[in-house]
């Protein structure tokens, strides 16, 4: 156990138990909007384009072809653009391999036939193995948190409408199911 009840109790005792007045959502969002616009206006570099952001690596340059799997010239189960992103982001071999395992698992989730529960469950288990590996290779407090690695790779994998819908369909197929987080070394 990494947490103690005593520490938590101490913190809890110092917390207000009564709810402060609820802030209307429209006000909160409007304030956020105004500040976001202000921040954007202040930092905007009008001469830059999204293409230049992609060229500089500030945002990833992605494969937007029609197929679910995109271009995978080396046939390693990972789209070449995601391969390049991983190579650039994770120079350490164990982290690179863990990210590739995750990308491969996510790509497989796109290929599950709608309603094929057994295949969807197999994909979920494979993603869980990859997730467990990422947490082994990206310890908390490092250059990037494991959770961020996973969420980025999911976004990269689901970067077209077709791919995003495929990813959500597989999740929908898993509705009402159960699976575990495996333990041990699940890195490939």
């Amino acid at each position, binding site marked *: *156990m*990494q*947490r103690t009840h005593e520490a*938590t109790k101490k*913190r*809890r005792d110092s*917390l*207000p138990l009564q*709810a*402060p007045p*609820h802030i209307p*959502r429209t006000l909160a*969002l409007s*304030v*956020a*909007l105004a500040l*976001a616009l202000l*921040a*954007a206006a202040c930092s*905007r*570099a*009008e001469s*830059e384009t*999204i293409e*230049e*952001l992609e060229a500089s690596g500030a*945002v*990833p340059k*992605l494969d937007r072809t029609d197929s679910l799997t995109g271009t995978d010239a080396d046939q390693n189960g990972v789209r070449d653009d995601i391969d390049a992103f991983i190579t650039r982001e994770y120079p350490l071999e164990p982290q690179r391999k863990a990210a590739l395992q995750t990308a491969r698992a996510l790509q497989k*989730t796109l290929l599950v036939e709608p309603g094929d529960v*057994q295949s*969807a469950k197999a994909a*979920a288990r494979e*993603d869980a*193995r990859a*997730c*467990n590996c990422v947490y082994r290779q990206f310890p908390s407090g490092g250059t990037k*948190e*494991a*959770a*961020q690695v*996973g*969420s980025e790779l*999911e*976004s990269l994998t689901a970067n077209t*409408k077709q791919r*995003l*819908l495929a*990813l*959500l*369909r597989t*999740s*929908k197929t898993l*509705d*009402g199911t*159960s*699976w*575990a*987080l495996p*333990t041990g070394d699940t890195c490939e």
Partner: protein
Amino acid sequence: MKALAILLSSVLALSWSPATLAEEDGADLCSDPGVVFVFFNGVQTTLRGANYAKAEFHRLFGETSPAGETIKYEVLYNYSEGFEDFVETFEQRLKEQEGILEGRFELFFEALRGGGPWWDQMQRVTSSAASVLVGLVEWYEAETLNNLTTLVGNPPTSANYAEHRARIENWTLEGKKLLFVAHSQGNLFANAAYDFALTKVSSDSVKVVHIAPAAPTLRGPHTLADLDLVINGLRPFGTVAPVTDSIPGYLDRPPGVTGHKDILGHGLLEIYMNEGLAVSERVFGHVVSALNTLVAPEAQAVPGFITATLTWDGAGDVDLHTLEPTGAHVFFANPAGHSGYLDVDNIVGLGPEHYYASCDPNHLRLGEYRFAIANYDRAEGRTATVQIASWNEGVLGTRSVVLGGATEEYPAYLMFNVRVFQDDTGELRTEVW
């Protein structure tokens, strides 16, 4: 009929290659968890999101309980109806403002949290990105509230979640302590699961921790942030648990481990498990308190490398039959096989029946296991459910069948094939079909 069953067993045995497991110094192949940490995911959670939430709980609470027992982390997953409809609206919104962001679906998940590093970059080069994002967030909040309100009005039923119930049945049978931790709409499912679990074990053996509960009723302590715009937005439509904690405004919040803040104040990893926010201490305290007080129920079955659990929905005698890789036919008349045992048999009604394959490498056999069932007597028309699970990966599959007439010892329904094999690294794995 008994002769037919034995004949079937013999024929299958002849058609299979003998299978053996490499000896491994007598080490136990499985880790038997004393506690199962069961996560019920919240609204708009993908399978990847569910996996990473489990992994975060594992990172924070570790593999050992205060009593020194192993903790296993599993999800009882639910999908938010209509999630895929969001994609259509997202596509339309990206086409606004001269379409500069058109087709960039990699921004979808960041947008649901109110932004992130890639949106920040987009806002650097085009001011229209900010207005697109805020429009998306306002629309997303309204749609999420709409979907949650619908779900609260039509809560999940047992018929929709047979796999969840069969899993709980298996856990209680094996004497596990159960900790249910639910976020958002997962609380509706956790409540149903808790009520079901109480038909099997006492409240000492199962606890619920509610996080940002969308459910109008609670089964345990809860945490709710004042700026959770999703759950607090449900107040006009019905009963919502009281706020327990204040959180800073959006701009003052530290990002969670995903690198995002969540503008709606509702995210599990961004808000409630964000160690930079005091609200997380309440959640962690509830979890630790539950772990400290859970009491193990009496075990009626033994966990295994793989297990099969059979239940059915009424009176009658239904039998679980296992055909092991060596050809051994394990059923009520022959409960001990070469690899495993039928350790729970039921002849009255409902079940369960339970088979486990040994975690002892000297007993576990590699190869194909076949699981079949028979209506031995008085179970015609009953729905029988078989769930196969592995010790490390959880449920491999759950299938149900409506039984025909009695066939006594003849297993008329083949439910699952499971292959136990050693992969390239030497790890023992399973494959099911």
